[in-house]
């Protein structure tokens, strides 16, 4: 499905499951971060984060698991640049 179809479909699921508990596996970050109350991030069979979308987005372990250390290096370089 396209991204817009996925978003529409997840909204439909929410409509059908109002008041019920819902677990979903979804790779579309927009859907995950826009609609979920909490996100469980799994890597190699372990939960490395289980928290609200905001907290998961800011979690260094999640950033590293998904983006390698590139993001951390960019942030470090940016911080050093601001320091000079």
């Amino acid at each position, binding site marked *: 499905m396209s991204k817009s179809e996925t978003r529409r*479909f997840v909204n439909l699921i929410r*409509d059908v499951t109002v008041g019920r508990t819902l677990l979903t596996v979804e*790779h579309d970050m927009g859907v995950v971060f826009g609609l*979920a109350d909490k996100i469980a991030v799994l*890597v*190699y*069979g*372990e939960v490395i984060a289980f928290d609200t979308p905001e907290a998961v987005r800011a979690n260094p372990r999640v950033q590293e698991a998904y983006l390698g250390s590139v993001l951390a290096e960019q942030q470090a370089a940016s911080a050093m640049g601001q320091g000079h």
Partner: protein
Amino acid sequence: MAIITIDQLTKSYRVYQKKEGLREAVRGLVSREYKTVEAVRGISLRVEPGEFIAFLGPNGAGKTTTLKLLSGVIYPTSGTATVMGFVPWKRDLEYRRRFALVMGQKNQLWWDLPAQESFRLHQQIYCISTSDYQRTLDELTSLLDVRNLLGRPVRELSLGERMKMKLIAASTNRPRA
């Protein structure tokens, strides 16, 4: 009170390591090498009633395996879990009536039949009274705007329409909590 509790849940699979060539194929008939794959490694979670939880992770992270464990499709290697007070892999009838599982890549609708025929099958499997079934069907087909498609063979529906029908099929038993 949590509706789902998972405590140190693990699931390992023993996978046959097949080697290349006829000689190794014959050798494999008498002596096989296996590798243990740890799909889920000691996860613990608590989910409160009404929460919408998204599982995120790369392929092979254990997301679908966890959902299969929670729906009782497979047994864990170790650890515990309860959903609505039930241990999923004990597969109590009362538990199986109370949840729904939709797998995107699995089709639970008969391809050549109209979706309403598959819904009827679900009604029979779950022993749903005709009045309850009709009420649920009216509500969901109206909500998802597919009432006029109920009589059309599933193979003639668009992907989106098929997904709506799958959602209805999974909801005919009115999953609770």
